[in-house]
């Protein structure tokens, strides 16, 4: 197999890895905010559910969670959903990352001085306005470094999609390497992850710079 056929075979895997990455971020970034806000709910039951969710997600391997989402409906509930592989994969990733993002958001929200809330309250801002106009923009700036870390981890975690036999770039690398007795596929996969993360780092540092206009 020539290098170019190897590359073209693996590029399909790269696209699939990219799909998992993008869909996970699109789902988990907003969902994490919902979770973070629910964690501050005035209803004890809601807070308890959220706490259990976050500790289970953080306390078990993502690989295991993916298996549970895929096989759970059949083995645990006896339901046969049909071809549920890709939705289960994305569900697993989104719910996992949302838990981590929720904790980052919560830390950011709690780091905003109480004086900001009080100033907004005295000026007559509603609770929603206070959050959207005063608190959230400051939270975004503060959490950027932690979010960057999570996003970089996600790039590499997409390789866990192989658990559900999803042919992302790393599973393809393993297959081609075994069939061709070549180390090259692993190098290609390595370069792919590195370049992807380089782009992430670059993009995030641009965003951080754009937010540098105030302290």
């Amino acid at each position, binding site marked *: 197999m020539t290098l170019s056929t190897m590359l073209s075979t693996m590029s399909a895997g790269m696209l699939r890895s990219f799909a998992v990455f993008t869909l996970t971020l699109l789902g988990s970034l907003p969902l994490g905010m919902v979770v973070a806000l629910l964690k501050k709910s005035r209803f004890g039951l809601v807070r308890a559910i959220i706490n259990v969710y976050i500790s289970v997600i953080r306390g078990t391997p993502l690989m295991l969670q993916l298996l549970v989402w895929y096989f759970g409906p059949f083995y645990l509930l006896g339901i046969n959903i049909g071809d549920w592989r890709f939705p289960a994969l994305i569900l697993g990733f989104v719910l996992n990352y949302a838990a981590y993002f929720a904790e980052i958001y919560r830390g950011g929200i709690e780091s905003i*001085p109480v*004086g*900001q809330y*009080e*100033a907004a*309250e*005295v*000026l*007559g*801002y*509603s609770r929603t*306005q206070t959050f959207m*106009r*005063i608190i959230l*923009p*400051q939270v975004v*700036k503060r959490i950027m470094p932690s979010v960057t870390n999570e996003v970089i981890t996600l790039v590499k975690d997409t390789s866990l999609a192989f658990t559900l036999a999803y042919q992302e770039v790393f599973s393809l690398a393993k297959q081609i390497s075994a069939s061709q007795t070549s180390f090259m596929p692993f190098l290609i996969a390595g370069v792919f992850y590195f370049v992807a993360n380089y782009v992430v780092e670059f993009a995030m540092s641009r965003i951080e710079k754009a937010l540098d*206009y*105030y*302290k």
Partner: protein
Amino acid sequence: MILEMNNISKRFGSNEVLKDISFNVDKGEVVSIIGPSGSGKSTLLRCATFLETIDGGEIVYMGKRAAHTDASGNAVYVDHKELRQFRSYCGLVFQQFNLFPHYSILKNLIDAPMHVQGRSKVEAEATAMDLLGKMGIADKADAYPYQLSGGQQQRVAIARALAMKPEILFFDEPTSALDPELTGEVLKVIRRLADEHMTMVVVTHEMPFAKAVSNRVLFMDGGVVVEQGDPISVFENPQEERTKQFLRVFER
């Protein structure tokens, strides 16, 4: 009468911070509240500006009741919507300024008038620039709070409160976080507002300032108003032993 606070009580747990305090402010009046820390001065301001809820008593703004004690002895407030109306009567300047760091100075001054009071951008900006001019910092309109000195930040905070056109402005130790050389510029601004007959209540440790600017001085200690009167009588001829003791500390 702009503000009447009648028989206000406030507890934090078992700690009674305000004990049956009554206190009125007339239109155009400047009232200074002095007293040792922990005497309840700040809590009184925070109750008046609805940052804290009272446990008993009555709060009346412009003849309209915002809170009162019901038959069962609990303090009840008007509903959410009405409370916003009451909030618009009062402005508060904090010890720590509490400017919004992500907004420019101009945006700090126009955001609430536009998005809370629904004023037009043109109108809000005109008011804001006028106020910044009065505060002597018109050239800072495009700067961000972190680029300003403490004294400038506090003047912005005063302008931000005034931009809402409140009936009464409260100051919670407005110069306590400032270096001594920056205190003067903030006090000068407050003094000028007094000359324009802005209704103000100032919690302060600046005795010469309180004496020079106020129409009335309240001395608070242990959650009660120990003594009140015109500044000359309170400062030069205090009747209560506790007041004399407190003022002696400042004479040294």
